[in-house]
């Protein structure tokens, strides 16, 4: 096992609040690595730091051996890091298909003037994008919604669409921010199978934030517990769940 992604002494401060406080961990190639912690622990902030939406106060980020701490946000997808959002950030007034095609954006190489004329190379690229998108639609069973506007889709489908859009970029690492929040039991089950398939069949490394402990136990190789921006424990799901600091944090002491 080799390390795919590494976080070193990462800190993020909002005014007086330390949202992320000296966090260090690394994610191995091919594993499902889950971050747990109470609300406001700083989990989403870590994701936003990785996506470069936030600038860290201190610390560094490495992906595939490359220092990505200074990279602009729109360069992250190209490297092979894709993500979903906890509070669904889909393109509401576009079809599901267009949403997924935006997921392919980091692979577009066509120039604006070529697109204006829709030259053969643009058409070829569009076909290729479409083929990749269809594979993902197939994989996540979204055929029925392909041409639907996102604004009219039920919550569960939007949640899956988030994952689908991330997969369309063919990432090496996918960040899932609470993939099961708001889903019913059945949908959560589907999600857990998909996460396993993403790891085993697609060979994509998963870094996930999740609250549902049964889902966490089912899919995670390693779990990291966070509270007030600090690492409490790191290990298997069971080890972490039994850790006295974690128990205390969840009991609210």
């Amino acid at each position, binding site marked *: 096992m080799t390390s795919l992604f590494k976080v070193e002494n990462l800190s993020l401060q909002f005014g007086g609040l330390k949202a992320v406080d000296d966090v260090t961990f690394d994610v191995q190639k091919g594993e499902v690595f889950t971050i747990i912690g109470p609300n406001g622990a700083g989990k989403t902030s870590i994701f936003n730091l990785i996506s470069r939406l936030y600038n860290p106060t201190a610390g560094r980020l490495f992906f595939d051996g490359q220092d990505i701490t200074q990279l602009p946000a729109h360069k992250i997808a190209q490297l092979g890091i894709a*993500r979903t959002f906890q509070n669904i950030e889909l393109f509401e007034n576009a079809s599901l298909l267009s949403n997924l095609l*935006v997921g392919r954006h980091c692979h*577009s190489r066509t120039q604006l003037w070529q*697109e204006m004329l829709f030259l053969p190379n643009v058409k070829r690229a569009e076909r290729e994008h479409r083929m990749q998108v269809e594979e993902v639609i197939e994989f996540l069973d979204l055929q029925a919604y392909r041409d639907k506007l996102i*604004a009219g889709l039920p919550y569960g489908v939007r949640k899956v669409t988030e994952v689908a859009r991330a997969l369309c970029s063919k990432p090496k690492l996918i960040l899932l921010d609470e993939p099961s929040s708001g889903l019913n039991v059945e949908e959560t089950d589907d999600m857990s199978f998909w996460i396993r398939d993403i790891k085993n069949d697609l060979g994509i490394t998963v870094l996930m934030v999740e609250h549902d402990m049964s889902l966490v136990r089912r899919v995670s190789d390693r779990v990291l517990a966070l509270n007030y921006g600090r690492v409490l424990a790191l290990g298997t799901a069971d080890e972490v769940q039994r850790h006295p600091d974690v128990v205390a944090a969840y009991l609210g002491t």
Partner: protein
Amino acid sequence: MRFVFKTNYDQDIRLFQHAGQMWTYLALFAVLLVAPAVVSSYMLSQLVFVFIYALVGVSLMILVGFTGQASLGHAAFLAIGAYTAAFMQAHGYTFATYFLLAGVLTGIVGLLVGFPALRLHGIYLLIATISFSFIIEELLARWESVTNGNEGMRVKTLELFGMEIGRNSDYFYYLCLGVLTVTIIVTLNIMRSPTGRAFIAVRDSETAARSMGVDIAATKVRAFGLSAAITGFAGALFAHKMTFLSPEMFTLQLSIEFIMVIIIGGSLGLHGAILGAIFIIMIDPLLTLLKDDVPLLIGSLAQAFGAGSERVKALEDGTQALTSTAGLKGVIYGLIIMLFILFEPFGLYGRWLKIKLFFQMFPLYKKSTFKRQKVYVKSERNR
């Protein structure tokens, strides 16, 4: 109702999704081709204005409708295109050269406006574009060596292939139709390519767009540049249609009229820009009609109900006074905007989609089909 069966991916990539659609547009195009032979010269002239407004409508659709950026500065872009064309023509350049340059130069100005606009959202962006518009207006009035200041500038008759093309000639109509058609096709091409999808992505969620690899700054600046360029082309045509340019033609009032094109037409697609342009241009003759006929109509109605001739006369005069009140047009415009924003947020095109769906689904149509659901709040934090 029609089901479009999709048998291969190209169906979604093509300009027309099915043969029926293609024939409809070809038929419409054919009608527009023969129009000069059929309609009155007044109507033909109005149609030319529809085309020019539709060009600006398409440009606004790219910037406002698709990319979600506000602009009340398009009158200024139109002015830059118009003055560039007129100035260069006066200095002996051919139509092909100055027409192209009007678009390119206006596009470059659009890029320059786009850069500072990157830091602004919503109402602040609106104010910035209004200020830009004021600056250009002032520049037009002061830079007398080029624009002839407030006295205004004559535009010579258009010359193409050694032919003089008058502002009311059939050829000018065809020229405008051609420019509009090409612009629409180019815009549709962009919208089915990565750049077009990036526009939509920026409009709906900048956060997600960035994480998908969309360069927000580059995308917005491109939208500004493209939009300004199209308006610049429209400006060159506008110059020839008006044959006279002066700063007071390009005020905020005109920018508002342009925005009305897409508010009324609807920002869902390019159709909206066209419908809106038709509406805005055709409302003028409609209002004139109103002014002439409504007093008489009311008079004869009163007569039918048995009012005395003195009473009828008073009524006619009263309505006459009302319909010819100065500023009535402004009031009606304002009222229309308000009504559309309140009751038809998707504009005429949205209304058309609803009507179409009603007949396709009859009797299964549900009113709630188009109702927007908002079940959760988007995180404002990530912006």
